[in-house]
């Protein structure tokens, strides 16, 4: 991680994270010096792509800057957005580090049953294996009918066309389009344990 930035961050954290730090008695903040330093941070140039902040639900507009090689080099607040008018909070302002992060994984990892380590695998292999497991699990655990309470103390046989053997839990920072595709596929397979961060 960016230890070399420690000194700079010790100053800037006075602006955005100083509340707790100050109460813990750690920092002696000089915000004027931080502001002066921030004023000298160079603004990256390149092609500007409109985007939306991936964190909370306020929906701040962002501008993603891409250099000539097509690499994302900066993410800033979009001044046109009527929501944030160019501003971002500490998380939004750090979005670039979500994209450019040496700890981010970009290959498929696989852990075999009982193993104590990850192995790298090709994406295509993983997709085949996941599809195969999905089908096998669904087919072995599919319910066409189920006896349900009839409200009079007895039961009534109902067509349910579902499986309880597969569950899906999604995050809420994933596109509307994904939500649509995913509910559609899960319903087609009979999956009813279909949940999202949106509940909790």
């Amino acid at each position, binding site marked *: *991680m*960016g230890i070399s930035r*420690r000194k700079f*961050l010790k100053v800037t954290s006075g602006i955005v*994270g100083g509340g*707790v730090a100050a*109460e*813990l*008695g750690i920092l002696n903040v000089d915000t004027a010096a931080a502001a002066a330093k921030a004023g000298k941070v160079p603004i990256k140039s390149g092609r500007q*792509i*409109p*985007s*939306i902040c991936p964190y*909370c*639900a306020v*929906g701040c507009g962002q501008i993603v800057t891409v250099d000539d090689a097509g690499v994302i080099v900066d993410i800033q607040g979009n001044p*046109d957005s009527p929501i944030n008018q160019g*501003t971002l909070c*500490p998380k939004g*302002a*750090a979005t670039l580090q979500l*994209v450019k*992060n040496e*700890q*981010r*994984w*970009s290959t498929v990892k*696989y852990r075999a049953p*009982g193993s104590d380590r990850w192995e790298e695998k090709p994406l295509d292999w993983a*997709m*085949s294996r*996941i599809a195969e497991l*999905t089908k096998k*699990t669904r087919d072995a655990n599919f319910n066409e009918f189920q006896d*349900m309470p009839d409200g009079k103390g007895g039961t009534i046989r109902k067509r349910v*066309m579902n499986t309880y053997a597969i*569950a899906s839990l*999604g*995050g*809420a920072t*994933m*596109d*509307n389009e*994904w*939500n*649509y*595709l*995913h509910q559609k*596929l899960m*319903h*087609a*397979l009979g999956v009813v*344990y*279909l*949940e*999202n*961060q*949106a*509940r*909790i």
Partner: protein
Amino acid sequence: MGSNMAECHPVAFRWPLKAKTDHGAVLMHVDPRFTRTSAACDVHVPIRAGSDIVFLGAIINHVINSRRWNEDPFYREFVVNYTNAATLVNPDFKGTEELDGVFSGLAPDGKSYANATWSYQRNPAPGKGKGGLGPFSDLLLQQLPGRPKTDPTMQDPHCVLQIIKRHYARYTPALVEKVCGCSAEQFTKVAQTMLENSGREKTANITYAVGWTQHTVGVQIIRAAAMLQALLGNIGRPGGGVLALRGHATIQGSTDIATLYHSLPAYLNMPDGRKKHDSLKDFILTEAGPLATSYWGNYPKFAVSYFKAQFGAAATAENDYGYDYHPKITGDHSHMPMMLDMGAGKIKGFFVMGQNPAVGGQNARLQRKALAKLDWMVVRDYFETETASFWRNSPEILSGELKPADIKTEVFFLPAAAVAEMEGSFTNTQRLLQQHDKAADPPGDARSDSWFTYHLGKRLQAMYRDSANPLDWGIKNLAWDYEPEAKEVAPWRIKDEPSAYRVLKEINGYTVADGKPLATFANLKEDGTTVCGAWIYTGVVPEEGKNNAARRKPDEWISPNWGFAWPANRHIMYNRASADSQGRPWSEAKKLILWDPDADSGTKDLSGNPVRGKWVAPSGEGIDFQPTKAPAMVGKDAALGFDWLSGNDAFIMRADGKAWLFAPAGLVDGPLPAHYEPYESPVANRVYRQQSNPVAKVWRTEGNVYHGVADPKYPIVVSTYRVTEHHLSGTMSRWLPWLAELMPELFCEVSPELAAEKGIRNAGYVTIVTARGEIEARALVTRRIKPFVLDGKKVHEIGLPWHWGWQGNAKGDVVNDLSAMVGDPNVSIHEGKVFTCDIRAGRKGGRS
């Protein structure tokens, strides 16, 4: 209330601050902790976590007994016309005053309600309607209820206003002192300020976040706020309303286009084996019957168009549009019971995408142990989350309780594309859809979430292609073609991304015959000639090639040309109520939409003369009402939807067109908010004999042990919350060097009084214990937290931000190891905002 907006939604907090500095708005913060939000507000009132309904109920009591509310004609006009205050309720209804804390209809076992007595008194049912509307609509017309009876003087003892008066009579400032722990003066200041700033010329807003939802009475807290706002005339008007500050970029979209077990997209209910849902007809009549006199009268169109979207050409009138092949739910399959069923071995395979239950789930230890029971698990994320690594280095592995060799779960980690690396849309907390464009390909084998689900579906469809088994009809006939056009992928290395535009167009809806997008949901049909994934989003793609979510023209107010606010670009829902019963703006200052009697409605009468009069919005705001229905127009009794509603029925999604002060249906725990203590509480309920929500969801199972009422082992209230620098379970923040360094370590906020009692030193370690688990944190001894004195008893409260886990750059114990699985009965949300614990100085295991 229930929100620390300055820290959790800082950019949005600019706007109330601007209202304060530029327009003299009064900001009030009612919250257990003194936070940066409190610091920026004019007033901060600390109340004990979980006492919100007492506070809100007392404001309601204050308002409806105030001289201002009873003498200013504004309130009467708003409430009589736009709420159900005048509606008469079944004389058999009994409330908490008669039944000491519960409502009529509680089952003998005390675990569920039958709501028959919560119903309205009604006039006789109308004769059968004219018909010819469509096969399902005509059936709905035959089972319409009579109009609700009302007493416009609001004096009848069974009318809603009188019921509310009786219900909240005991919610006094003195009770607030005893239950909430603030002073009567502090309370009265807030109540009076709300009242004085609500009326013809001014509106007041209530903003909340998960501080209100994460309770066993979460839904009822928000209802109490909505009731107060309806009584004050603050709904449907600029500056009014109840604003939910939600926590994720498209958590609203995930709810709208639900990846939630109980819901189909756009708030249609999921077919359910427990209900009369045996055919599409049964499904529509059961679900839409009670709602048919609202805009939900169009339910048949929404439902048939959904099934057409699901199964395409294979969905026909003859096969009930594939209804029989669609799954049904049979119980509560939500997050918490899902994880318990997983722990019991019922679930074999698990997709976890962009979610981290090993840290974020209640009773997280139990959730991690459930993962070890799976046959397989697919995790998609940016980093090796705690969920992905549970088998390798979780606390259970490190303690030796579990061994990797014994965990048979086959785990796949698939790297995910970042938002900047894919095209798609988010729906923000104001229902605004906004497009994000793709700026670059994701690295290596990272792919978009849509890519994963699309290609999994394609592979599965290929595997089922030759199946003749009718159980496979659904996957075999799934309409699943989102191949991109060449130009969509031309700039990119990855050529097989599904077309986000084609997905959004299907969500929007189109006509089967020519594939043209639907401009409005008014064009939907129930005869299978339209396809629509989620009717509330119709209009986002109003014509081929046009994406309104990508509009980027701001203005100084509503910005109707920035993104797309569902429904139909209406930014303030129920905005008919922004005008009075004659259709005139309540005041110039609060003008939004109005009835223009001279405007050309665009229609002609039988003689061919233009019909005058329509609703107009100088602001460019979408009109949330039938555009040509005059304020004085009386609805037809034997009709559906808009035709049934009258010109003053502003609340078009309610079956009576009114804002519900009293909820005759739709809630499982009572028609009115009543104070129940949190499931784990340091005190007995002082309001009623009934201690906690009688129908709360509880799961008494191994590893999910609850504390007793005023449990001497766990006397301290704990509330969990978030900080500015981290996001939820930390996957999107603890790996980021800047954020990890800004907020490196778990801490626990403790009052100086509690610190003195327990020998806790600022910045020293403390251990927090519950029956579920034990964690350690650094103590932050601060006057921001203070003990409450409740009827003479001192109650301590501590605060814990919950972002940390064992992975990433900033590590710490998992706070959710402390919490229990217990939930709201309406929506199965947990009670992470308030439970009980004990705290001691020093590290776990007795280290100092």
